Each structure stands twice: as C-alpha cells, then as structure tokens.
C-alpha cells in the first residue's frame, strides 16, 4: 500500500507525468494534498505549466499570445 504523503521528489515526477498521461484518482489526490502544503512543488508545477504554454507558442509567439486572451 502506497503512503498517502508524497515527497517533493515524487511530486515533481508526478507533475511532469501529469502532462503526458492521465494520473490516477489516487495520484491526483496525493498530489493535491502535497501541493497544498508545499510552496516549492507549487512553484515547480507553475513552471511546468509555463513550459507547456511556451512550447505551444514557440514558433508563432506574436498572435498566439493574442489568441489565448479571450
């Protein structure tokens, strides 16, 4: 049985994998609990979200910025 508490090391990996696969309900719950109490992983989560957005705009940054703002 997996512990409910996540370490930062696990949380980082799960944040990244969450961009590539559907996390299980349990993983999502564990991650959410961890992020609630961990500023470091919350920041990391935001950084990963920015990376994804930036990559999608990479080759056409000008109007991509406009498109997102609705």
């Amino acid at each position, binding site marked *: 049985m997996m512990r409910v508490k996540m370490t*930062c*090391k696990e949380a980082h*990996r799960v944040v*990244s994998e969450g961009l590539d696969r559907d996390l299980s309900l349990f993983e999502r719950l564990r991650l959410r609990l961890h992020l609630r109490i961990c500023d470091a*992983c919350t920041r990391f989560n*935001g950084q990963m979200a*920015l990376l*994804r957005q*930036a990559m999608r705009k*990479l080759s056409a940054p000008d109007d991509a910025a406009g498109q997102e703002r609705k």
Partner: protein
Amino acid sequence: MPDFQLGDLMSDSLHLQLNALRPALLRFALLQLRNDAVAEDVVQDTLIAVLEKPDRFAGQSSLRTYVTGIMKHKIVDVLRASKRVVQFEPLEGESDDDFIDALFKADGHTQDMPRAWGDPDATLEQKDFFRVMEICLEKLPAQTARVFMMREWLELETEEICKETGVSTSNLWVILYRARLRLRECLDLNWFGKQEAA
C-alpha cells in the same frame, strides 16, 4: 485587368513575407529534425505548398501561425516516414538518476526553493523570452530534444511518439521529465534569474 494586377501584387507581397519567415522556419525545423538537409527540404515543401494555394490562407490567423501549422504537419510526415529508432544510451551527459537526484535531499525534499517566475502571461508576451527558449532547446541532447519537441511542439500523443521512436512508455516519461528539468534550469539561469537582477 485591375484584378490581375492586384493578384500579382498580392502574390509578390506573399513571396516577400514568406521569405522573411524562412530563417525562423528553418530554425524550428532544425530544432526538431537536427538535420540540415532534411530541414531545408521541409521548409522548401512548406513554402511551395503555401504559394501553390495562396487563397487557402484566408487571414484567419497570422501568416506565421498558418505557415508554421503547415510545416508542423510536414515534419510529422517526415518523422512517420523515417521511423528512426531513437537510441537512448544512458549517457548523453550524466545518468538520468544523478541529474534528478541532485535536485533533492536524501529525505526527498527539494534542495533549493524554486525561483518565482512571475506572471506567466507577461513572460509569454516577450519575444526575447522565446529566443532564450530556442537557445535552451538547442542545448538539449539531440535525442532528448527530438522527443521533447515531438511532444510539446508538434503536440503528438505519447503513444505515437513511442511508436515512431521505439522508446517504451515509461522511458518516454522519464525522458520528457528530464528534458523539462533541463529546460527549466536553462531558462531559470538565462532568463528568469537575469530578469530578477535587472
């Protein structure tokens, strides 16, 4: 007669605009394909496709977005046709584990507090940020970059990337994770750290 001249003018201006886009297109094709000749071909094919059917571009997006979209499709075609099996030797630098482990203490906590990156929307409006991002992508190990760009730039599903590269799913997750960590480190150092200092 006036119509003919107008059409001519438009295609002249399209030519000019496409020419202006060419260097950028080539940079991105090269980032993904890491092969000069193949990248040149893809850009050439893309420009020809646009010029052959100029009326397809109805101005619903910017020309750059439109042309980039076409080029992405062409690149996916090339990747599908080439079926290059990606070999991940554990050493494209240090081992995966070392690189990841260095970020954490023995108890699994982060070594350092990640820097606050500020307002994401403001960041994404800065052209210079994207140039730094390109440089950081260039610095990734070639195979890592190839897979990462497939996922994040071409937006392919992981199943397809595994199919095209021969990498296992769990391996792919690790490769993508490592690429993100490297990219984050590079941007943190060369962009966000400098913004803070300025």
